[in-house]
């Protein structure tokens, strides 16, 4: 958990309302795990905005965000060379488990954290398979990035690209021994219900909650789990299937 200024390297539209933001930092050691997020201070807004880490190579941090409101609309106006303050290394992130065929399920802007994870898993010699779900062709992104790393299936709700349907529709045809997912809560719930039994800890779902601080101080993001109350920003955003209580 660190706080620092980054320089915007690039902030480009890659799909409808979706932007790729690259931030650079010099001479600063950061330790960042897949599934963790940053909390960005956007000019003109009081609270920071949580965004998942899509990539980190030791110098450049890549984030992908969708314009959904005022803050993300302002973020899209940042230009190369401007600085942006971020709290980094937030949350628990995914805990990679021993698996041959981990299944990565991403929906919309839940896809970005899985890219960083896919990279790390591939590096560790695993053979992930990614299923990326989007509303339609216009909103899809990063397919080629994933294909360069692992087997990739693209699903769109209207069938305008890849196969028609939700990410869960692709699950029965895939042989997997671990699940990592991020996306809208309805998607996570469908995955929870349809996933085959895997050993404890092998099904990891990443949740979103409105946040105040992002580092565990304010208790606005708490949820009930089997193992007690957890702060999505601190003991989450990733929860294992065994501990989830749906509300």
């Amino acid at each position, binding site marked *: 958990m660190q706080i620092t200024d980054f320089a915007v390297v690039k902030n480009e539209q890659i799909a409808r309302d979706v932007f790729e933001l690259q931030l650079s930092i010099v001479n600063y050691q950061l330790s960042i795990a897949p599934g963790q997020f940053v909390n960005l201070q956007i000019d003109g807004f009081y*609270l920071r905005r949580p965004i998942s880490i899509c990539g980190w190579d030791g110098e450049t941090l890549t984030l992908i965000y969708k314009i959904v409101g005022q803050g993300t609309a302002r973020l899209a106006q940042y230009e190369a060379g401007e600085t942006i303050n971020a709290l980094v290394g937030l949350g628990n992130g995914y805990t990679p488990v021993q698996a041959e065929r981990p299944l990565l399920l991403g929906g919309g802007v839940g896809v970005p954290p899985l890219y960083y994870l896919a990279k790390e898993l591939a590096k560790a010699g695993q053979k992930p398979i990614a299923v990326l779900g989007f509303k339609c062709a216009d909103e899809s992104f990063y397919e080629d990035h994933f294909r360069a790393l692992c087997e990739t299936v693209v699903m769109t709700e209207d069938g305008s690209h890849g196969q028609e349907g939700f990410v869960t529709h692709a699950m029965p045809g895939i042989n997997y021994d671990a699940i990592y997912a991020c996306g809208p809560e309805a998607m996570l719930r469908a995955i929870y219900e349809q996933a085959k039994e895997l050993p404890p800890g092998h099904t990891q779902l990443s949740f979103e909650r409105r946040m105040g601080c992002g*580092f*565990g101080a*304010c*208790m*606005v993001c*708490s949820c009930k789990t089997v193992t007690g109350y957890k702060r999505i920003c601190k003991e989450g955003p990733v929860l294992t299937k065994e501990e989830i209580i749906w509300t």
Partner: protein
Amino acid sequence: MDLSVTLSGVKLQNPVIPASGCFGYGQEFRAFYDIDMLGSFSCKGTTLEPRFGNELPRVAECASGMLNAVGLQNPGIHAVIAEELPRLKEHFHQPLIANISGFALEEYTQCCEMISQCEQVGIIELNISCPNVHGGGMAFGVCPKSAAEVTAACKKVSAKPLYVKLSPNVTDICEIARACEAAGADGLSLINTLLGMRIDLKARKPVLANKFGGLSGPAIFPVALRMVYQVFGAVKIPIMGMGGVSNARDVIEMMLAGAGAVQVGAANLVNPYVCKEIIEELPAVMQQLDITSLKDIIGGAHT
């Protein structure tokens, strides 16, 4: 440069105090800086029994501030005494402010009695102003009679100076302040959050699950300042001033209005270093303003 202040006989190395609910029990901030540099901090509002608090969403944003409806999530007084205080002891050697809350008079007095026995606790802060729980908290703080009752009952069982935290959601805060003073309060903390709301335009529904929440942050600074100023004129006991304080200049302004020490709430959530920065910034700002001792400026704006 003398930054020290004294509240009801409790000496603090500086007047900068993270406010209740914005600093947990101190642990999260240890990752950022040495919290022992603080004057004190006010722990998360603690109740007799553990509480989960309100449903989510519990937070909303607004211009220059935020709304929260946490609803006093805390592990309960027993866990705080058994776990949080011992854990804190290793890293924090300043007198702690124990913020306690309740739903019935006996809950307040039980908490008060238990926590006041703890050596680490310097001051007890009685939260009778939480706007986010039903049937408790603010119910005590909006009427002079019940505010006086709970103050008197807690004063009887408290071995430590008792500060009562006041709600701004009242017609006349001075009346409540005087009632608490008359009932034996050693000091006052003000202000708690202002009740507000936001509506999600697309969903056409309140953003907060609780509908309403407490407004804090820079947006409320002028209101808080005005109330501290008024209450300073109405009572003789010391005041911890808070509401929107974000930098060293705000601290000095609060003290000029009448605060003997200053709490910083929401600002910690957006900049975890804010209290450290304020403490480091203070001497230079004091120098600019020809202040050699902060004690000398308390209430300095009153003529």
